[in-house]
């Protein structure tokens, strides 16, 4: 029993770390643009399919190369999608609603394109690192350790970017005060596009990391979209720190509920916790009013 509980905690920590990476990306877009991106889950699948193509079609089985090739592609695609589809809508009234509609359409287009291109059957990727670490009765797969380290590394890199780079500082400024940011010369449109591109990289990287554990399917991103939004709302809309806490809390909850009640209860439990939290504290764990 004790060994099982430790296993569940470790599983919760690993899932929490990847969810944190992905939820922080979603929080970033919401924090900066206050718009809902329905295609976020489809970018998760995009990461998985990119990795699968590099692995199966180009026959490259080095994850280092997979990341080196995928990240620029995700960055450029994210930037172009924002520039071509989202940016023109911002000049119109009620643009937030229009962004929701167009990203929903984009999600359907991408998911159906994956099905046409890659078929409905799930794709698998090899483990990033074979073998496991055995300490007494505990067995910890190297794959999980690497996923955890890369996810936390990604979040720390993102934090460094926000605090120490010129673009990062402009992202924080626009998120905190869009009008004030423009007035001191920050190009708001570029910041919107950059954050969309960065968040695409974050969720796409999550897709590559989890593809080895959960396979890649055309509609697999919807589950991630729902979880990322539950985490974002639970943590407090637009609060990056809140998303980090929420990701680990909900990752742990998911692991325990899945282990004790079965995986079918996981989403029900997540929503039950979200609704209860929002009923007591509508702004989420660390969100602010106004």
């Amino acid at each position, binding site marked *: 029993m004790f060994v099982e509980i430790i296993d569940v905690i470790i599983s919760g920590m690993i899932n929490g770390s990847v969810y944190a990476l992905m939820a922080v990306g979603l929080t970033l877009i919401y924090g900066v643009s206050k718009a809902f991106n329905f295609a976020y889950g489809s970018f998760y699948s995009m990461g998985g399919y990119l990795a699968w193509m590099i692995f199966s079609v180009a026959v490259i089985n080095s994850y280092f190369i997979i990341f080196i090739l995928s990240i620029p592609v995700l960055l450029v695609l994210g930037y172009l999608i924002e520039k071509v589809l989202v940016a023109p809508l911002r000049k119109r009234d009620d643009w937030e609603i229009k962004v929701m509609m167009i990203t929903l359409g984009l999600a359907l287009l991408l998911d159906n394109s994956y099905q046409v291109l890659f078929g409905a059957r799930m794709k698998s990727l090899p483990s990033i690192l074979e073998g496991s670490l055995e300490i007494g009765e505990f067995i910890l797969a190297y794959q999980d350790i690497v996923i955890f380290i890369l996810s936390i590394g990604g979040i720390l890199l993102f934090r460094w970017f926000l605090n120490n780079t010129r673009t990062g500082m*402009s992202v924080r400024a626009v998120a905190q005060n869009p009008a004030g940011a423009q007035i001191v010369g920050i*190009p708001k449109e570029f910041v919107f596009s950059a954050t969309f591109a960065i968040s695409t990289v974050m969720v796409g990287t999550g897709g590559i990391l989890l593809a080895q554990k959960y396979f890649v399917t055309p509609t697999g991103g919807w589950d991630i979209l729902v979880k990322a939004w539950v985490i974002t709302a639970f943590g407090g809309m637009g609060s990056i720190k809140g998303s980090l806490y929420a990701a680990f809390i909900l990752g742990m909850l998911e692991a325990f509920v899945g282990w004790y009640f079965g995986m079918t209860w996981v989403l029900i439990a997540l929503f039950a916790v979200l609704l209860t939290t929002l009923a007591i504290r509508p702004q989420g764990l660390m969100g602010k009013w106004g």
Partner: protein
Amino acid sequence: MLEIKNVTKKFGELTAVNNLSFTVEKGQVFGIAGPNGAGKSTLYNLITGLYPFEGSIKFEGKEIRGFPSHKIAKLGIARTFQIPQTFPSLTVKKSIAIGNYFGSDAEFDPAYVDEILKFVNLYDKQDEKTGQLKLLDKKMLMIAAALGTRPKILMLDEPMAGSNSKEILSLMELIKRINQDMGITIIIIEHFMKVLTELTSKLLIIETGTEICCGDPNDVTSDSRVIECYLGDGHD
């Protein structure tokens, strides 16, 4: 330096700025006053590119209509808002550095940021988060962040609002120093007539977006139309 010509802005049926024309000379302190809802802040929003409009706005002879806000900031037009607009989780120093990073084509200059911090008396508070500052310090910081962009014109929107008499004196002193020591042209929207008559060399009064009177502040404040529509009898 700044030439506003036949500028009109309509929001649906409402005309916020109505065929307004005036010129601000280099080195001048130019005042704008009028009742609430007269279109004063909207005018600032038009000059800084936040809204599209009809008419023409030229800065140093160059038409800036249609320019995005960040480009206008880079040309040398900075502004502040009625409610202090700061970046709550950034420090005082970083907030000014942002202005210097993005608002100017000149290379980022940490020494200039320090100079501004001292100029507005915030040097000792440079590492504090802006969200924790008191109102007067927030106002000073907003002016400092605008100065960080190395502006040629600084447009202040009711800087004295909510300030006590001591704070008003220190803000007036700061505005004078910005104009005289830094050589920056100032446009100031204000309700305190004493502030306007003391600081400005030209005063424009608008009501419902339309010019009522424009000229020497002492002449303007004694104009019967201004007294009737804005100041009322027995104003100070």
